[in-house]
């Protein structure tokens, strides 16, 4: 049922729209919201309350309260009062068992009220503990909001967009528009954000304001103001970062200046029955009449503490609503106010002990400035006792407030914290079903601070984010504690200022992944890709990593080691620079030779390891671990920012692909593909040579992490597939096969090679990691020298040792080493070596156990197993194969 066309209506009666509510078709017009269409169709109950399942109806009709939250096209908790209606949209109630009108869970209201004070669940459902999962399942179904469809969690696409403007204006009312126009006319770029469907704010509520609103809109457009609406500024972060939710777009706006013109929020009054269906705020009644041409009720009682409530009477009169009583609280507050309902809908109101029949109550406390964004930005918010409002003060630089948010709310009365003689079911917090009784109960239990009470009772923590309950709850606290509102203070304002979906914050799914230039070849070859740091690398190429490892011993394997960090260190002082960073020496490294290096921090901790090759007098080529590349680059450049040595450091990790060709047939393959002499005499172990491999300029390093004759080829990454393919083709007869990370881990463990951060931790130093040979105590200074000397002086406590499992039991990596029944170290690496036919590993053990043949215990599957210490490599201890 609609009224005849109203002067301000925003519906287009020539465009009918049909949608579905709880399975039945509902008619609407373009310009309707789902809420207005449902109200026009006669619906009054829009939701069931969070805890007691009390029927709730339209209260604010401006998207602030939680009373109209429904599930729309599968998306829960949509505020239908501001959700534009769309053809065919499917709408349903939520948090009910049955329907909105017949919710079987309403029994909780009858039973629950007296039984569910704050903390009831915590206190009651704690025993017996084992039943909690059952309790939880039941409680989750009884209390709460709408249900997410797990299958459709990402039902809508969300994009994120960055914007930079001179000015963001939050609020499209008169003050906001004027501020925006003024800035734009000065030549500033201006973005105006308005949460409502229309620009104009309070102008739209007055018949004489509509033309003024239109004029402002036109001027804003002419001045070049960019307007976003409906859109919500969800926070105000450091240096004026304003995230704006605009449909399925999240805008991250940086502004030089933010003008907050967020206006005020109308406040409810606290009295018995104030949550009944039909009790609403003045703006809701006005909008129903003016915007959607709906008669909100037949007989109305108006209780107003300010001009807004009085203004609403004009709209109601225009709609033909009978005004039974209009009470202006400024003329005196009714001592015994109470509303009663039938089936949850208001049917009579008692004023001064006399009941009057009505089906509509318009209530209006003193409207509160929307200071949340200002408070987030660091403004102080203080209570003005005369007007009963919280006003912003001490705005931070770059943030301004204009309009009613500054406290220009007109003449108001300060409502009593509770109106009415009975304290029962006077709702302070509608979202969380918290009454004055609950707050008093919490205060009596000692939660007298508003911050504590908030956490205990959850008052202000519901979907309205405190818009309608923050000030009323502060008033109750002040009165109950016998102090003023400023002493109680406000709770901390936190983003988001308005509920938004997590999907909007998450944005589009994206997970940065580093791929080597051979990534797709690994996939082509059946490589099982795994994460290693930011990289994806092949774990192995089949089901049998052990066999894949053995094949390297037998014939020939290729592994992509492009992920290794690669740094160039060049300059007259390059050698001296490396000498100061590493425990060992590099200034005496001959051109074309390679030396292993371990980096330590000044605390003596091992931070990374790798090889250092000297390319010419001035240039060193340093490799790091795959995950250490950025860290080592920053480490080097930091030290040089301190030292200022004549050296350049360049990170060329991505520029180069690297492939390790390993196995007894490696030389034969290289002979056919490499343009230099690769004989053992010409190209010895730990030599670095410039050459061409498969026609590609290459730096070949003769090193062997996996313990076999090996050449590590470093060449431009765009040639990755060309070189790799050529190696596999030409090596086919030699048994060339790719091997992955897991086989490599087996092979290196057979050699007892350490993986930094696998076999070392934040306590590891070079001495206790069994690398004393790398520590050159005769060097005057290097990073980590002093701390390493201290370890030497205090004596070794721990030692990283190899071990074998005599009976083949396999400890877990990270498993505790047990000596004499006490924890004494841990296992760092374990693998079964098919080549050796043994379970081998590395462990950190007490230093006195670091002798070949000594034993220690490890728990394996609940049994204590004995492990035997093995010093030195398990495989090819002399390195004959490596140097062959």
């Amino acid at each position, binding site marked *: 049922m609609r009224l005849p066309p109203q002067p301000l209506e925003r519906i287009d009666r020539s465009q009918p729209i049909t949608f579905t509510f709880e399975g039945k078709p509902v008619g609407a017009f373009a310009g309707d919201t789902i809420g207005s269409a449902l109200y026009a169709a006669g619906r009054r109950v829009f939701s069931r309350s969070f805890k007691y399942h009390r029927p709730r109806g339209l209260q604010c009709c401006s998207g602030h309260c939680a009373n109209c939250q429904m599930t729309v096209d599968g998306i829960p908790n949509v505020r239908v009062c501001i959700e534009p209606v769309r053809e065919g949209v499917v709408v349903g109630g939520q948090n009910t068992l049955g329907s909105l009108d017949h919710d079987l869970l309403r029994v909780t209201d009858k039973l629950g009220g007296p039984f569910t004070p704050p903390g009831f669940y915590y206190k009651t459902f704690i025993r017996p503990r084992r039943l909690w999962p059952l309790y939880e399942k039941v409680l989750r179904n009884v209390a709460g909001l709408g249900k997410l469809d797990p299958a459709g969690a990402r039902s809508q*696409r969300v*994009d*994120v*967009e*960055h*914007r*930079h403007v001179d000015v963001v204006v939050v609020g499209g009312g008169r003050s906001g528009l004027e501020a925006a126009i003024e800035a734009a006319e000065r030549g500033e770029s201006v973005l105006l954000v308005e949460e409502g469907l229309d620009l104009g704010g309070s102008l739209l509520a007055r018949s004489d304001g509509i033309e003024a609103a239109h004029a402002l809109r036109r001027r804003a457009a002419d001045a070049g103001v960019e307007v976003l609406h409906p859109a919500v500024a969800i926070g105000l972060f450091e240096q004026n970062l304003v995230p704006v939710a605009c449909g399925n777009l999240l805008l*991250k706006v*940086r502004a030089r200046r933010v003008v907050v013109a967020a206006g005020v929020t109308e406040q409810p009054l606290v009295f018995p029955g104030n949550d009944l269906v039909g009790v609403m705020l003045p703006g809701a009644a006005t909008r129903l009449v003016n915007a959607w041409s709906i008669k909100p009720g037949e007989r109305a009682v108006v209780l107003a503490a300010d001009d807004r409530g009085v203004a609403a009477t004009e709209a109601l009169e225009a709609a033909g609503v009978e005004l039974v009583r209009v009470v202006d609280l400024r003329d005196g507050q009714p001592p015994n106010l109470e509303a009663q309902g039938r089936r949850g809908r208001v049917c009579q109101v008692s004023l001064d002990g006399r009941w009057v029949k009505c089906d509509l109550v318009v209530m209006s406390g003193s409207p509160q400035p929307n200071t949340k964004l200002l408070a987030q930005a660091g403004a102080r918010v203080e209570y003005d006792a005369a007007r009963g409002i919280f006003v912003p003060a001490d705005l931070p630089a770059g943030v301004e407030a204009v309009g009613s948010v500054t406290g220009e709310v007109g003449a108001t009365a300060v409502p009593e914290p509770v109106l009415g003689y009975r304290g029962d079911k006077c709702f302070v917090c509608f979202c969380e079903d918290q009454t004055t009784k609950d707050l008093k109960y919490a205060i009596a239990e000692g939660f007298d601070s508003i911050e504590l009470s908030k956490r205990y009772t959850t008052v202000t923590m519901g979907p309205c984010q405190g818009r309608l309950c923050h000030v009323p709850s502060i008033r109750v606290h002040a009165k109950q504690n016998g102090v003023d509102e400023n002493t109680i203070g406000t709770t901390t304002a936190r983003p988001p200022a308005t509920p938004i979906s997590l999907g909007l914050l998450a944005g*589009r799914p*994206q997970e*940065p*992944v*580093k*791929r*080597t*230039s051979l*990534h*797709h070849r690994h996939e082509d070859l059946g490589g099982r890709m795994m994460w290693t740091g930011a*990289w994806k690398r092949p774990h192995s190429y089949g089901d049998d990593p052990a066999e894949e490892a053995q094949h390297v011993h037998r014939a020939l394997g290729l592994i992509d080691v492009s992920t290794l960090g690669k740094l*160039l260190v*060049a300059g007259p002082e390059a050698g001296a620079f490396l000498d100061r960073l590493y425990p060992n020496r590099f200034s005496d490294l001959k051109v074309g030779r390679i030396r292993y290096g371990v980096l330590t921090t000044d605390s003596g901790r091992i931070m990374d390891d790798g090889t250092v090759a000297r*390319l*010419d007098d001035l*240039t060193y080529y340093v490799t790091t671990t795959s995950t250490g590349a950025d860290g080592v680059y920053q480490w080097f450049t930091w030290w040089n920012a301190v030292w200022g040595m004549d050296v*350049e450091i*360049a990170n*060329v*990790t*991505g*520029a*180069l692909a690297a492939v390790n060709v390993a196995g007894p047939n490696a030389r034969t393959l290289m002979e056919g593909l490499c*343009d230099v002499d690769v004989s053992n005499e010409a190209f010895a172990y730990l030599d670095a040579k*410039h*050459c*061409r491999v*498969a*026609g*590609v*300029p*290459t*730096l070949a390093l003769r090193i062997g992490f996996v313990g076999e004759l090996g050449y590590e080829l*470093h*060449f*431009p*990454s*765009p*040639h*990755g*597939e*060309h*070189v790799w393919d050529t190696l596999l083709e030409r090596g086919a007869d030699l048994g060339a096969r790719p091997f992955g990370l897991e086989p490599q881990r087996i092979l290196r463990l057979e050699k007892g090679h350490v993986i930094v951060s696998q076999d070392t931790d934040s306590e590891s130093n070079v001495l206790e990691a069994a690398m004393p040979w790398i520590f050159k105590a005769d060097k005057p200074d290097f990073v980590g020298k002093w701390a390493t000397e201290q370890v030497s002086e205090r004596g070794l406590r721990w030692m990283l040792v190899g071990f074998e499992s005599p009976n083949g039991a396999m400890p877990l990596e990270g498993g505790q080493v047990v000596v004499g029944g006490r924890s004494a170290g841990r296992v760092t690496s374990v693998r079964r070596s098919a080549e050796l036919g043994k379970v081998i590993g590395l462990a950190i053990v007490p230093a006195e156990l670091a002798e070949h043949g000594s034993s220690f215990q490890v728990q394996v599957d609940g049994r204590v197993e004995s492990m035997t210490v093995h010093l030195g490599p398990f495989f090819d201890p002399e390195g004959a194969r490596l140097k062959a």
Partner: protein
Amino acid sequence: MSGALDFLSPGLAEPAAVARSSLERCQRDAGATFEERGGWLVPVSIPGEDAHLAHVGIADLSHVTKLEVRPAGDAPEAPGSVWYPLSRRRALCFCHVPQLAEVRAQLADRLVLDVTAAYAVLALQGPEAPTLLRRLTHLHHFPSGGDVAHVTAHVLEQAPSYWIVVAQEYGHYLWEVAVDRAGPLGGGPVGVDAIGALR
């Protein structure tokens, strides 16, 4: 082979050794037609590119020669080359292959590293290119570097295109993100001949 840093230069490989961009597989998946140009497999055209370019086209320009120059100093005089100083210490120089010798000669007093292989280059072009860029990064003055879809990259304005210069190991990732973001704008992959680009 001569210089100690020759192994950084894909341009020094023999002609038979073809160079591939880190985005090559993405181009192939998009149905690209490739041509070998200057030793590189270059995606010259892609089905649907005209429709994409009416909104925003994304092309793989990774084959452009890139040099890192230390210290930055003055830009070389080479028409069409692009000079991008990162600090007083470092600059990037993008140039045509035929210019390379001349550019290197002009930079003979400085340390020059061939970083052609280190970076992927995604070119965005079309009326929605600024929108796409805003959906990828907060960067808005060009040239400048910073966070682009959660990885560090540099954005240069090379009218009528924008170039996103990113570590090649992130190239594939960033391409996928850019194409995903371009979709709702009506954009998508295009070949390098569809845009006005350095050859």
